[in-house]
């Protein structure tokens, strides 16, 4: 007898289009592989180096095991936050749901298979953070073979706990927001709710872990022997147990914790299946329906909204409407622009003892010579935010199978690309405005600096939009069945983020190192980005337009 859950998971995995390299030219493939070959090892190397940096002082107090617990905890937390989106879209919004529902499958089989698919995708992510920590620790502390065997199995189990929690939240929220009409609106509300709950829970737990009293802490510290591992409460108990299992892998204690980890993960998975059996169908059935009013608009009715507009503005407006109305795009590309300031502020707002930090930062900001650094920091944030919203870097990919429509419209490819650029520029700029407001209100940055940022911030943003669009033109991911794949599982967005972070560093580091004044920073950064923008715009206008015409569809 074959296991239907596993069978279905395999089919779903095969059906996913992976990294979207299919159909791209050899040169693009080579470029992507080279980029990967550089980006992933350097990221893992960075984590490894950081582990070495942490492990030395911890060894002195006999708490080196913390590195592992922290590593697993951070990995779990990251999987959880990213997993929520992933789970919601895979469980509920993927178009395969409509094909799966009529099949003679039990709800728990669908939930189980989809859960496994997400788990497999999260391995890449988990491996990137956990493997360097695990290997570095193993080498530094000279752990035995059992340590490596346990670690490998624990790595395989790692996404289960956070993803189960994400699934639980998603299923409950979708169960209660699956209302008859305005499906899209509820999808958005559900998604936002899950995201905020997720972040909130995470922060609460982080807060709790910081509330260890000083006396208790110093007592634990004196004990040495990795006594702190067990004392850190976590939303993911598996993180602590897995840490214990690894640290004590040579002894029976390690085996015990290892067994607990496995048992708990199995139990969590079983519990999830049971819950799926109970509530999954209620949340998913009818989700693809859209309500309509069907009210008669008589002869006068048609007058509404039929005025002639310019081609570029109409096209830009439609791009924006689609971004706002498609739940996945709204959550990933639009909301994210407003969320960054919130993400950045959360740690300051939630933890009591760090409110002082807020004041300290605003004091530092208001030092007379910090103007250049603030400006550079805003440029850095602008680069990061406009890179990570992925609007430009998925502008072609989002068209998907319907890209051909844009080919027969009597609008030049250049104008179409400009309209796409404008929609990305508009939304990213809104992100800057919200950051400036947060900066002025909470960090008390001078209003003049804020105004300067608003006046010049479009330069780095334009750069990110241009580079994102060009990247997407060269390797568009058009073959998707679920909008999530166009924006979140799109490697182009990742490239855009990497470019954004790299340039952010290149903007901030010299300003800090050479203590540039605000005028110098302004002159250097603005002229640099202006030159880059003009260069890239010319590339888009020529090579980019040609490339758009040659994309097969």
């Amino acid at each position, binding site marked *: 007898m074959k296991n239907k859950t596993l069978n279905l998971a395999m089919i779903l995995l095969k059906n996913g289009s992976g990294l979207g390299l299919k159909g791209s030219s050899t040169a693009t493939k080579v470029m992507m592989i080279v980029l990967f070959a550089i980006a992933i090892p350097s990221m893992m190397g960075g984590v490894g180096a950081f582990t070495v940096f942490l492990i030395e002082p911890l060894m002195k107090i006999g708490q080196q095991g913390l590195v592992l617990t922290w590593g697993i905890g951070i990995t779990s937390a990251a999987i959880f936050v990213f997993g929520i989106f992933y789970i919601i879209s895979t469980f509920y919004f993927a178009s395969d749901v409509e094909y799966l529902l009529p099949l003679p499958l039990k709800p728990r089989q669908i939930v189980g298979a989809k859960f496994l698919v997400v788990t497999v995708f999260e391995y890449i992510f988990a491996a990137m953070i956990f493997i360097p920590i695990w290997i570095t620790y193993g080498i530094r502390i000279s752990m035995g073979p059992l340590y490596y065997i346990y670690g490998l199995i624990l790595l395989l189990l790692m996404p289960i706990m956070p993803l189960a929690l994400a699934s639980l939240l998603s299923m409950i929220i979708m169960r209660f927001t699956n209302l008859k009409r305005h499906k899209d609106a509820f999808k958005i509300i559900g998604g936002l709710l899950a995201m905020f709950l997720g972040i909130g829970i995470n922060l609460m737990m982080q807060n709790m872990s910081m509330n260890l009293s000083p006396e208790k802490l110093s007592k634990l510290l004196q004990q040495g022997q990795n006594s702190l591992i067990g004392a850190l409460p976590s939303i993911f108990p598996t993180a602590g147990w897995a840490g214990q299992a690894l640290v004590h892998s040579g002894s029976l204690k390690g085996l015990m914790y290892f067994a607990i980890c496995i048992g708990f993960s199995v139990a969590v998975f079983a519990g999830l299946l049971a819950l799926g059996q109970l509530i999954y169908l209620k949340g998913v059935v009818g989700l693809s329906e859209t309500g309509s009013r069907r009210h008669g608009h008589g002869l006068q*009715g048609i007058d509404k909204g039929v005025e002639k507009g310019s081609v570029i503005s109409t096209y830009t407006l439609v791009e924006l409407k689609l971004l706002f109305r498609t739940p996945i795009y709204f959550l990933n590309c639009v909301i994210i622009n407003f969320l960054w300031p919130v993400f950045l502020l959360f740690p300051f707002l939630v933890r009591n003892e760090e409110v002082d930090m807020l004041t300290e930062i605003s004091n530092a900001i208001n030092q007379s010579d910090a103007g250049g650094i603030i400006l550079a920091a805003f440029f850095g944030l602008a680069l990061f935010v406009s890179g990570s919203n992925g609007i430009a870097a998925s502008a072609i990919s989002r068209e998907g199978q319907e890209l051909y429509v844009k080919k027969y419209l009597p609008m030049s490819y250049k104008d179409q690309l400009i309209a796409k650029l404008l929609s990305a520029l508009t939304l990213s700029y809104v992100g800057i405005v919200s950051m400036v407001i947060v900066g002025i209100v909470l960090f008390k940055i001078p209003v003049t600096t804020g105004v300067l940022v608003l006046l010049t911030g479009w330069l780095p943003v334009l750069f990110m939009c241009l580079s994102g669009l060009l990247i997407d033109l060269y390797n568009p991911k058009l073959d998707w069945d679920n909008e999530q794949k166009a924006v979140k599982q799109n490697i182009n967005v990742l490239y855009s983020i990497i470019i954004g972070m790299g340039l952010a560093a290149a903007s901030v580091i010299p300003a800090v190192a050479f203590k540039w004044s605000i005028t110098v920073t302004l002159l250097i950064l603005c002229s640099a980005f202006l030159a880059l923008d003009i260069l890239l715009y010319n590339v888009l206008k020529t090579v980019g337009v040609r490339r758009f015409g040659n994309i097969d569809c």
Partner: protein
Amino acid sequence: MIELLNVNKTFNGNVKAVDSLNLVIPNGEIFGFLGPNGAGKTTTIKIITGILNADSGSVKVNGIDIKEEPLEVKRSIGFVPDTPNMFLRLKGIEYLNFMADMYDVSTADRKERLQYLAERFGMTDVLYDRIQSYSHGMRQKIVIMGVLIHNPSVWIMDEPMTGLDPKSSFILKEMMREHADKGNTVFFSTHVLDVAEKVCDRVAIIDKGRILFNGTIEEMKEHFNRNESLEKMFLELTDSEK
């Protein structure tokens, strides 16, 4: 008028989708493009509408070469693709307005045509709903409306009858006739032979990228020198190639 001269298109280096295709589709006629699945109908249509570039040969619409003046050619065409699932998150009216802007239709003209088309297709009540909420046939109708809003001199459709109810497909056939009678070109692909037999002034049969027959139904009957159903002739024609 559409003129295809020696057009070739190869996919992945070896699959010849369109093979030295020559075809002239005159004004004032309804022209049916027939062929089995995978014969090259959609590829040919994509080349005429500018979605695909031909490897070689020339495509002219109203005497203008698509390679030289792509926008000019696209402006004179109205194209109804075979799947109407586009712009699903726009309201019907927003989509129509988008198309009207794209094809540079004045406010007065678009209002008048919108009114007329919406009534004729029975879509007035749903124009302010999202296309996502439409049935397949309604989506097909909204796409057809979006195409007719600029009154194209060349109207091209890929399998336009799919999903339409009998009344809508009757209306569509009527409109095709009217459009052709005004001196415009109407070109559509189909594998429903009855439709072709009843509506078309002229048909071409394509298989494996090559035109097997091009002429009126009467000429086709003469060609076979007997009075058989189009279906039988079609099957014979496309089978003999295998």
